């Protein structure tokens, strides 16, 4: 449901909420607070400010002064990209956005306020939550957030990514890199397997007898045929994938002794990348908009929270239907949410929601593949309309073009989100 201000006043239900926390006519500016400055939040803030025509007071809350994108961070692990190339500041985000570098620690939905770690309280008319993911502490037996310095997840980009790369670079000759892959649903479905490809590429240069062991609780995974073809072609014999049938789903890790235990059998490894099960970024649960799955259900036509009509949830944190959790999806969803919020607060035209996503992955230098789909809201969920995936056996020219396209996309989406 899309509420325009005019219809808003007329309906009983909406009128009640209007009394509870009125949008004051003649108030200088209507306030939108956005929590999370990644592909979803930064895009939403920019579009709200850009298209709001100065009518909206937009505040973006992001803990990190410099944001490091998780997308493309595997290319850094593969030695194909600088760490700095993944980093984006907020200085170009646009004049209409106030950026506060702090951590949101509380949301009072009745009073419509957000509390920050620094003590500041931000009132809002609309709140956008785009906090990405957090990890389930009990997802992998033996692993907890206390172990991240020994067995890094590197699934929120930043120091964790640099730590994992340092570990790969200093692996002993012929050593073993283990990855505990996450259960569904998780951020960036092809991400763990692109990471395997990029780590394999790095090891092939300096440590060609090293082994990669992937322990996976899933029967199948994104772009599986493409990755398997690529691993056989470029890294033959290096990668072993262990699915649930052979114990990949019941893995225990021992950070103290650097062991992984598969079906009761302990194996010593040199690097262990644990990508645990995931839930919505913590602030979503604090705000009380998540359900017992740990994700935040939203209305498919607007990304509005099903728990609160003044709150929107974007990207990885949201439970919306068929779209994968990706930066592209978050960016796409942010535009729909920004348009809807602007319509509600300023009476501007609201067009039907359209969503899309494409995920590029790199298997080896200049060998890129992609999967994508377009989506539309149905009453139940955001539903896939049409999809495509790269084919096995494609020629080198097409794979190179796909890779170059992914570079173009990275430049495009980061400019779209960060300015």
């Amino acid at each position, binding site marked *: 449901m899309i509420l325009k201000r005019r219809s808003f006043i007329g309906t009983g239900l909406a009128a009640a909420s209007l009394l509870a926390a009125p949008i004051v006519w003649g108030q200088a500016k209507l306030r939108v607070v956005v929590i999370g400055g990644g592909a979803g939040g930064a895009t939403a803030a920019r579009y709200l400010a850009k298209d709001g025509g100065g009518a909206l007071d937009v505040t973006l809350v992001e803990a990190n002064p410099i944001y490091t994108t998780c997308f493309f961070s595997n290319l850094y692990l593969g030695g194909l990209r600088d760490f700095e190339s993944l980093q984006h500041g907020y200085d170009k985000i646009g004049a209409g956005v106030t950026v506060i570098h702090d951590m949101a620690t509380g949301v009072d939905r009745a009073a419509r306020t957000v509390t920050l770690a620094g003590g500041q309280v931000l009132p809002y008319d609309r709140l956008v939550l785009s906090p990405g993911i957090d990890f389930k502490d009990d997802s992998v037996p033996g692993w907890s957030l206390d172990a991240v310095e020994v067995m890094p997840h590197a699934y929120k980009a930043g120091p964790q990514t640099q730590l994992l790369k340092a570990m790969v670079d200093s692996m002993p000759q012929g050593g073993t890199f283990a990855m505990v892959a996450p259960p569904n649903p998780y951020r960036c479905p092809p991400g763990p397997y692109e990471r395997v490809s990029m780590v394999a590429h790095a090891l092939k240069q300096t440590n060609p007898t090293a082994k990669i062991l992937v322990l996976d609780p899933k029967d199948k995974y994104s772009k599986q045929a493409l990755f398997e073809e690529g691993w056989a072609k470029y890294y033959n014999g290096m990668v072993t994938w262990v699915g649930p049938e052979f114990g990949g789903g019941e893995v225990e890790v021992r950070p103290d002794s650097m062991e992984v235990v598969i079906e009761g059998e302990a194996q010593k490894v040199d690097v262990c990348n644990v990508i645990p099960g995931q839930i919505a970024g913590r602030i979503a649960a604090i705000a009380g908009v998540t359900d017992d799955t740990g994700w935040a259900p939203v209305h498919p036509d607007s990304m509005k929270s099903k728990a609160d009509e003044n709150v929107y949830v974007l990207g990885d944190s949201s439970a919306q239907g068929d779209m994968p959790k990706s930066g592209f999806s978050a960016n796409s969803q942010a535009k729909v949410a920004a348009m809807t919020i602007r319509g509600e607060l300023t009476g501007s035209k609201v067009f039907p929601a359209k969503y*899309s996503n494409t995920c590029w992955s790199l298997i080896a230098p200049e060998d890129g593949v992609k999967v994508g789909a377009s989506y539309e809201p149905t009453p139940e969920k955001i539903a896939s309309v049409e999809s495509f995936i790269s084919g096995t056996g494609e020629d080198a020219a097409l794979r190179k073009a796909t890779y170059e*396209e992914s570079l173009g996309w990275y430049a495009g989406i980061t400019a779209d989100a960060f300015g």
Partner: protein
Amino acid sequence: MGQGALPLALALFVVMGASPVAAEEIGDAARGAKLFQRQCAACHQVGPEAVNRVGPTLTGIFGRRAGANKDFNYSKSMLRMGSDGLTWTLKSLDTYIENPRSLVSGTRMSFRGMDDPVARSDLLAFLRDYSDQPRDIPEAEPTALKTLPDLAPEILSIKGDPEYGEYLSSECSTCHQRDGSDQGIPTITNWPAEDFVAAMHAYKAKLRPHPVMQMMAGRLSNEEIAALAAYFESLD
């Protein structure tokens, strides 16, 4: 056209025409030869001794990947279509000759296009005779000759709503940068509306091969394409 190349090739054609299984009739090759001389030969050669001139040689063009002649300096746009998977078939050549820029936006071929479908068929019948197996073209159904995109005047005359286009364009700008950068992904900023409409309909009809764009264009209505064209044309 190099002197002598054409007559020799025509002689070859006569021999091939006499093969036991005749190629499917797609047009009048003799008429096509005259059209070629008048409209194409200033830049292109065809035949066993043909060489690249202003344009690449057209001998064996059928079945060849776009931009695949290693000795020819193609436009970036043509190379991109080639790596996207554009192959020259009866259908794609027909579309290209009808309106080169609807298929390859940045082609350097300065030819405004050939509107008459019969003339195009004649020309293609002529060019087909310089392929290895003329009788295998068209490979399957003769309907392959159908001209796409079939842009009716009422589609071309839709006046786009730039405000709607601006909203829709937010989907484009995830990849296509508004400032006109074209690393890996071509720019669409400032495109003439007519070219934009032709290109999007060519994707929609799956004539242009790129799968992301086929999907994106596939769900855009005629009005939405016009709105986007109006918006991108207006960008500074």
